[in-house]
């Protein structure tokens, strides 16, 4: 297998692209797109399996979404983890055990930088280089066209044995449409532009959206803004980050480890929330229209506290915007200076034709098996395209381990690799969580235990065990 070296001159022996551009042949090298958490772990695991790797990163540092100096980082000054350390760290590179249960984003970036240095990964990353096109070519290989992030210099096309898409899914803001929004004369921003509490100071703020980010920003607005309204479409379960003095996800996983059935866990969860948080409707929050575990979990101990102190006013969905006012679904009118849309992000693979990932109609919802493998493309994997009820990085780790083993088996046991391909086709769109609400935010929701169990089965099948 080749190792990663400087990209050489275009190889005249290799057929040019369909539109006649010259191509450099990178042999058995694998291309990884993105040097965030998912990309880094893919580089590390592919190197460990003996593959040469070229990783393209549009920014000048590692960390992706968790490097808040990056254009596309959704991180704000006070971002902390929502899942506690054991669920967030890479399984083979633990975070220091004297770190807090829920580390700060700066600690997380230092963790990724240390991971990159510890395993000597930076030498495989082409920083400041963005991927323009990824095209399948014959022999299950891929032509990857890159250029410098600034757009300077010529485009360059290289042919790879396999491609890992690890470009993240929390950078392309999903903005809702509202009647009159264009005429609204107050300030409007998406949560992706929110960086610092100073942006809220002294203002009358409306936060739209009850994801973890929306709740965090509402809590910050409660402390900084002169007024804060928090608009949510439905009622949610606001789980505290600690129960019984332990991180809530660790308590939850104790029940999972004891194999307590879902219905019983839901009952216990409701009972615990009733004891600790109490009846949310008393605070003016809408009653949840679903059971816990049916939407992405919100871990926030402070929102209810600030609602109780009158610093956050819960309000229903926005109906329409006026010149200076916002009309709510219940007919009330409010007059914010600043509207923050914490309405999430949409996954985007702008360098790849939608049909490659089974998304021919461009809905932005690829049809994959294990949220990672596309039918008919045995040398392609998407890493980190999951919305788990826990940390993503262990999932990315195991996805990339599975892909590295699959690539190895294509040479050593092609029959097993082919059987895996058939499994991919048969399992497209398979879900790994119980019943969840249908929304753009939940189509790739996975329960961490169900999903990792499915990954473990796939690994065992691949190894013939």
């Amino acid at each position, binding site marked *: 297998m080749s190792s990663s070296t400087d990209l050489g001159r275009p190889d005249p022996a290799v057929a040019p692209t369909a539109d006649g551009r010259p191509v450099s042949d990178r042999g058995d090298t694998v291309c990884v797109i993105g040097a965030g958490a998912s990309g880094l772990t893919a580089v590390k695991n592919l190197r*460990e399996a*003996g593959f040469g790797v070229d990783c393209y990163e549009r920014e000048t540092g590692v960390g992706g979404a968790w490097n808040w100096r990056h254009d596309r980082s959704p991180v704000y000054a006070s971002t902390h983890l929502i899942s506690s*350390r*054991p*669920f967030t760290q890479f*399984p*083979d*590179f*633990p975070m*220091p*055990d*004297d770190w807090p249960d829920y580390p700060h984003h700066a600690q997380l970036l230092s963790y990724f930088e240390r991971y990159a*240095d*510890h*395993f*000597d990964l930076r030498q495989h990353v082409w920083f400041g280089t963005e991927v323009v096109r990824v095209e399948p070519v014959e022999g299950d290989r891929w032509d990857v066209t890159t250029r410098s992030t600034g757009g300077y210099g010529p485009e360059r096309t290289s042919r790879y044995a396999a491609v890992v898409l690890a470009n993240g899914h929390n950078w392309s803001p999903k903005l809702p449409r509202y009647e009159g929004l264009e005429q609204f004369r107050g300030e409007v921003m998406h949560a992706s532009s929110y960086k610092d509490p100073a942006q809220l100071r002294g203002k009358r703020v409306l936060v739209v959206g009850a994801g973890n980010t929306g709740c965090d920003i509402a809590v910050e607005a409660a402390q900084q803004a002169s007024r804060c309204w928090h608009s949510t479409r439905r009622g949610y379960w606001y789980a505290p980050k600690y129960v019984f003095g332990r991180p809530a*996800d*660790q*308590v939850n*996983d*104790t029940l*999972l*480890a004891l194999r307590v059935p879902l219905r019983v866990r839901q009952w216990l969860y409701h009972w615990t929330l009733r004891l600790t948080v109490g009846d949310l409707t008393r605070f003016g929050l809408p009653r949840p229209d679903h059971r816990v575990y049916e939407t992405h979990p919100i871990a926030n101990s402070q929102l209810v506290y600030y609602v109780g102190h009158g610093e956050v006013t819960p309000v229903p969905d926005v109906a329409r915007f006026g010149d200076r006012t916002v009309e709510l679904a219940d007919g009330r009118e409010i007059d914010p200076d600043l509207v923050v849309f914490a309405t999430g992000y949409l996954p985007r693979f702008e360098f790849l034709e939608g049909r490659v990932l089974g998304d021919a109609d461009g809905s932005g919802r690829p049809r994959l098996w294990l949220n990672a493998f596309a039918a008919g493309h045995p040398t392609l994997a998407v890493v980190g395209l999951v919305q788990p009820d826990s940390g993503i990085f262990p999932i990315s780790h*195991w996805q990339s*381990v599975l892909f590295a083993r699959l690539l190895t088996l294509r040479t050593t046991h092609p029959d097993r690799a082919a059987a895996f391909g058939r499994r991919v086709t048969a399992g497209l769109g398979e879900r790994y969580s119980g019943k969840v609400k249908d929304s753009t935010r939940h189509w790739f929701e996975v329960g961490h*235990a169900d999903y*990792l*169990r499915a*990954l*473990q089965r796939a*690994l*065992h099948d691949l*190894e013939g*065990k």
Partner: protein
Amino acid sequence: MSGQPVRVVRGWEWARPERPARREVVAAVPELDQAKPPLLFVPGFGHGAWAFAEHWLGHAAGRGFPAYALSLRGHGDSEPAPGATLRSYTHDVVQVAASLPRQAVLVGHGAGARVVAHALARYPARAAVLVAPVLGGWGTFGTALRRNPAGTLPAVFGAGLRLNRRQLFSRELPDAEARRYVARLGRASRRAQWQLLTGRQPEPAVGRPPVLVLGSPDDRVVPPGALTRAARRYASAPLLFPGMGHDLMLDARWREPVDAILDWLEKDPAPALG
């Protein structure tokens, strides 16, 4: 070791993560960084980082390898931990390994080799060296009982395992020195001692590290058969140093085994197959 399937779901470990403990780590780092992998020495039960600080750390650093030794919790100057388990010890090793600037080589001595074998399933080491490995099981217990009944029997009832001078060192080591070392020995926790006999076998190593096994045919703790079995587990043969006791890093001819380890590492051993 490659026969077992990979374990992805670790519900109990996530739900009940190991309690942090203050750990003693002793380091000897070469003046000039020669880009050699750092070595992390893991002492066996009763020993602390001091056992490697005596000779091996300085020698490794002198040959350009950044060298570190830790004391497992409850040992040396680490925090006391009477309730520690093999999992706690493994956690200590993985924590220190991951804190090093580069991918580390794990070197475990005695029961520390068993801890290293567990750690290899949780941390992709650059390579691993098992020195006079006590990998556990009832065979180990039988040997210890035969060779040192007075020191072993009380351990069955919860006391500390006591190793004597003749088990640990050759006759070449001056008596005063041997006595000084024996006086420094502590003890592992009762649970960890039991788990050495009854605990689960280590899971397969991650990251395909090459593994070297070395020891002495005259070791009165680990019989030659056990050395061969340990090496076979990692598809190799043991490197033997006749005339030395169990504590190869403290014995009179301590330089030979450490040089063999460093020579092996300098040859840049290939990753294991599979």
